[in-house]
């Protein structure tokens, strides 16, 4: 691992795999950005979310290690099924790992939790006679 890299090759692979699994399970697009915000972290996260291909169906996680902030942005279609309070709870649960300096473990758990939340709800009563 070269100096200055936030993640090792193995950690990158793990995060990529978690994103793939999350997208396969939930049908949503997941993006993770780790880096400094330009000014306000929420605005930066919103700008990053707007820059992806299909923002309405996307979930973006922006981690600013400098400011120690975590921003989660959900698109409009995601928001129809994923409540913001649940997203906040998922984010809070990652605090322990982040406080310990283990960004990878926190991100992996967060992605998995968000994937669970974003999973489409199957109705058992769609074919009523």
């Amino acid at each position: 691992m070269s100096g200055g890299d936030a993640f090792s090759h193995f950690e990158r692979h793990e995060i990529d795999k978690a994103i793939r699994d999350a997208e396969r399970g939930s049908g949503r697009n997941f993006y993770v950005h780790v880096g400094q915000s330009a000014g306000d972290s929420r605005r930066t996260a919103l700008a990053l979310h707007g820059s992806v291909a299909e923002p309405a169906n996307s979930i973006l996680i922006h981690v600013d290690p400098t400011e120690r902030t975590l921003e989660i942005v959900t698109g409009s279609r995601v928001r129809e099924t994923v409540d913001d309070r649940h997203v906040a709870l998922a984010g809070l649960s990652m605090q322990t790992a982040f406080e310990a300096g283990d960004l990878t473990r926190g991100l992996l758990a967060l992605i998995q939790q968000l994937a669970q939340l974003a999973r489409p709800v199957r109705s058992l009563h769609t074919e009523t006679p």
Partner: protein
Amino acid sequence: MSALEALFIFVGIPLLLAVAITVMVLAPSLAKSKSPRAGRDWHAEPEWFGAPRAVRAIQAGRNSRQIDTESGDGYDPASAGHHGNTVKDEQALTVARDDQGTRGNRDLPAGTNVPVRTEPVTAGPPDDSSRDQTGGASVRW
């Protein structure tokens, strides 16, 4: 059994095993300590996961300017909604067919040229419509 053999079996081998176990236990933490720690001394390059296949071509290489929401370099409002940014680029954007969702111009056919606004989009906090479109949460640790 000579004295040398006895020394190797009863001292050398246990010593080698102890060293091997110590290395295996300490190796992960030693490797991790090279990673920068979160905080003011963070010096790592920004990292994207999941983005290379999705970030639009017109925005390639412009992320650093697009996410600059404070300095005035701004980003594309057509792609990101209006979040209180200044847009300076006068370059026309091509609306991709799959670019639908929270962004504007969703009814335009693919290939339509859309001029980017050159005046400040908004000043201050994001407007109510953008809040309605996106959700999420902010957490500090």
